[in-house]
């Protein structure tokens, strides 16, 4: 398991930031509009170092738009939008990817014509210039392949020949090879079988245990609320509710979260 660089926990640091550590991702009043249509209408949340934060909500709520704005793939406006203290506004997607922020977009989008191993090599692109040597990379590769053993068997195979669940695993593995400090996932369970979904959720838990913060957008409300420190419910571009792990067993509340209270 590679050690990802985390926030230094020096005594001074703890003193200045009191109880709550500086968030790794800080989003304040984010809006995204396509032409005249507002998709995200002022969303505020944060992700602490090593935290798992969930976002759930119905189709068209603005979940993907939020993530794409964070990743620089669509233009967003915000009072504050920082990753590890640096503003993400106006930065190119490749710059953001190279700063330790990895997005696995909705629908995974692996390179079907390239081999599994070439897909994984592309994941390492964002890692370049990070100063961590070859040994660090070898350890990360080994860790990722242990997380997704099926990929090791198919390294030489065109990625397009993998099953949907395997492609999703490949997309997450590819993102992890950039050694991100924040892994952002957009509906990783979409279209997967129950067993494949379990594999993905287990992998997400393992990533978090390794110290990486995770922002997880999902439709599988119950599983997400149970796993996340906080789960924000998004509806029509706004956060309508925030749930904690204890709410995962409250079926009525989850249903209300989706229907809008």
């Amino acid at each position: 398991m590679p050690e990802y660089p985390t926030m230094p926990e020096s005594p001074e640091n703890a003193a200045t930031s009191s109880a709550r550590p500086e968030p790794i991702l800080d989003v304040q009043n984010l809006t995204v509009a396509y032409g005249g249509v507002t998709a995200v209408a002022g969303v505020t949340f944060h992700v602490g170092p090593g935290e798992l934060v969930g976002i759930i909500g119905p189709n068209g709520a603005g979940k993907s738009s939020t993530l794409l704005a964070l990743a620089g793939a669509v233009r967003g406006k915000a009072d504050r939008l920082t990753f590890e203290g640096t503003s993400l506004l106006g930065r190119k997607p490749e710059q953001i990817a190279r700063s330790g922020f990895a997005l696995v977009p909705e629908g995974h989008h692996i390179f079907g014509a390239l081999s599994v191993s070439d897909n994984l090599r592309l994941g390492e692109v964002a890692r370049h210039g990070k100063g961590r040597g070859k040994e660090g990379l070898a350890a990360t590769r080994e860790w990722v392949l242990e997380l997704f053993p099926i990929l090791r068997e198919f390294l030489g195979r065109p990625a397009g020949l993998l099953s949907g669940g395997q492609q999703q695993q490949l997309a997450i593995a590819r993102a992890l090879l950039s050694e991100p400090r924040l892994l952002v996932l957009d509906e990783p369970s979409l279209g997967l079988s129950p067993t494949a979904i379990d594999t993905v959720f287990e992998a997400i838990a393992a990533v978090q245990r390794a110290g990486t913060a995770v922002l997880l957008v999902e439709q599988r409300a119950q599983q997400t609320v149970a796993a996340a420190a906080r789960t924000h419910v998004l509806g029509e571009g706004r956060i309508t509710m925030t749930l904690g792990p204890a709410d995962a067993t409250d079926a009525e509340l989850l249903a209300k979260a989706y229907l809008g209270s």
Partner: protein
Amino acid sequence: MTSFLQALIDATSAGAVYALAALGIGLVFGVLRLANFAYGEIITASAYTLIIVWPINPVLAVLGAAVVGVAVALLMNYAVFSWLRSQSAATLLIASFGLSILLQRIYEGIFGANVLSASVASGLSTSVNLGGVRLNLLSVVTIVLAAVLLVGVQLFLTRTSIGLQVQAASADFRIARLLGVRSGLVIAVTFAISGFIAAAVAFVLTVQSGTVGPSFGVQPTLFGLIGAVIGGLRNLRGAVVGGFVVGVALSLLTSWLPPEINPFRTAFVYLLVIAVLVLRPNGLFSAGAGKVRT
């Protein structure tokens, strides 16, 4: 039999030239969805360099042609196409048309409307005797040069990190950027390689003709583009094969058509294009149009 073999080698060599042109055009189309008509003017710039510098110093001429090809390609990218990256494929195509005509007028202004002549590498225009078969040396050199460049580009695309990034950007630019692929760098590298390939095409064609004029590069670009369209612009291997087929067809038509209809041989090539596009209408703009590249 001997003449058949000679015709075959000559056809292969003609195919190799257009395969190279299709490769240069197809590489850029892959990342930018740009069918670059102005590719011909990169060839022309390298050809002028060869014709002018060769009498002074042949080595300098070859190096200079390569440098000029790469430089003109990069200049096109930074001066024109990098501003249009988020535009539709149609806009890019029209821009490349305009750029092509503009550059031809500039060449005319600098070098005049008439052709410049010099014999470049005249040693290659001789025939060699290979086991009783007389072969045009230039044809053999052309085939070897094309093979080396094709293998080189293939190794670059599959064995280097930046080559893999070019492949990723060609498949899906948006996703490639989310993985940290630097869009500007990938596009510039692609233009540079296509410029180098244009210089190779210029070399073969100037040795063949010994002359260069303002519209020197138009014909090879047109046939390279036609080949790439036939083979499928989105698929680099297909584009190269398409260019090769066009060259072979042109060359064979030249040797086999009766003299009275030989002037119409290009018409037959266009007939071939129409037939291919009707049967496989996976035309120029069917895929990737309007993709966001910025």
